[in-house]
């Protein structure tokens, strides 16, 4: 799903009008309309700050919206800079290996409980 579609979907699910969402996020309603219709003039996605406001107004997961906007959530970015070696290894895994790795983590988590 694309960022634009997700914003529209979340907004409609909360029955918010373009104007109501715009007011909550502190931008114009035409700007929200441009986001939803993939028509932003400068850059493909809104700023991280605005995405945070949109997530708050929509009761959505900010990280989900950031990732859909091809942005890395700050906490993940921080860890990436702290442990680039680990992220490099993760990035080199194929999907099957990555899935197995995630399953192992989940198993360990469950055992720890």
């Amino acid at each position: 799903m694309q960022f634009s579609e997700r914003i529209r979907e979340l907004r409609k699910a909360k029955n918010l009008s373009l104007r109501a969402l715009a007011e909550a996020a502190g931008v114009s309603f035409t700007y929200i309309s441009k986001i939803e219709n993939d028509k932003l003039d400068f850059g493909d996605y809104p700023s991280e700050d605005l995405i945070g406001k949109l997530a708050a107004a929509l009761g959505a997961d900010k990280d989900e919206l950031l990732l859909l906007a091809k942005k890395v959530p700050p906490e993940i970015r921080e860890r990436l800079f702290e442990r680039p070696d680990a992220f490099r290894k993760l990035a080199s895994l194929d999907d099957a290996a990555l899935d197995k790795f995630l399953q192992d983590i989940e198993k360990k988590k469950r055992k720890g409980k």
Partner: protein
Amino acid sequence: MSRSNLRFLRNKVIDEITAGRLREYEAKTGEIVRFPVPVENVVEQVLGLDFDWDEIEERLGEEILGGFDAENRKILLNERHTDLFEQNPGLLRSTIGHEAGHYDIDIDRSTLLHPKLPGIELSSHTAKRHASKLNRTIEVLFQRASSDEVAWQAYKLLTEGQDAPEVKSAVDRYQSALLMPEWLIREASERLDFTKWSDLYRLRDEAEVSISNLVVRLQRLNLIFIPEGTKTLYRSKDEYTGQKTLF
């Protein structure tokens, strides 16, 4: 609803259609409709239409506020008038209501997804204008009538035989009924004095509509009468006639 039936649409029928849409909205969302009527939400939640902004071509002397992109089920608002819309939310709301009317009572929805064949023109009362970002021609209905004789004739044909005295298209009556449902207007009449302009302006602000839109609606519902050439408000023509005979 087919275009051929549109000319026979009386105010009462349009009121029933819009009231039905508002009831559908209430049932779907659990929210009671009050002033200002949440027209954008109704259009999205009940009619299933989306909004978009685009630069719609205007010819000399024209002011096109919006159009309807039937293929994408989108109400297109003209970016050229963004400032006007921002300054006047009532205008934005009536434009949305007007375009929703095209979808709900004007356009034959069964043909929406069928591409138009080369050489097959839209009906004569439909103006075609270019939306630059979409790079497509969209339908701009009726609004051309003010500057085009053919469109004006078609416009007159459509409104001929309908409820006098307004010379308004069916879609304009639709937007007016959608934004100002009869039951909310009648409720307001219990607490406001419609013979006072100050009260009408209060209702205008509550309903987030333009004063001219409100006045036409009140006249249509026979709740006010304004003698031609005056700005005096009466409750009815009878009241005005009765007062005249006193002098």
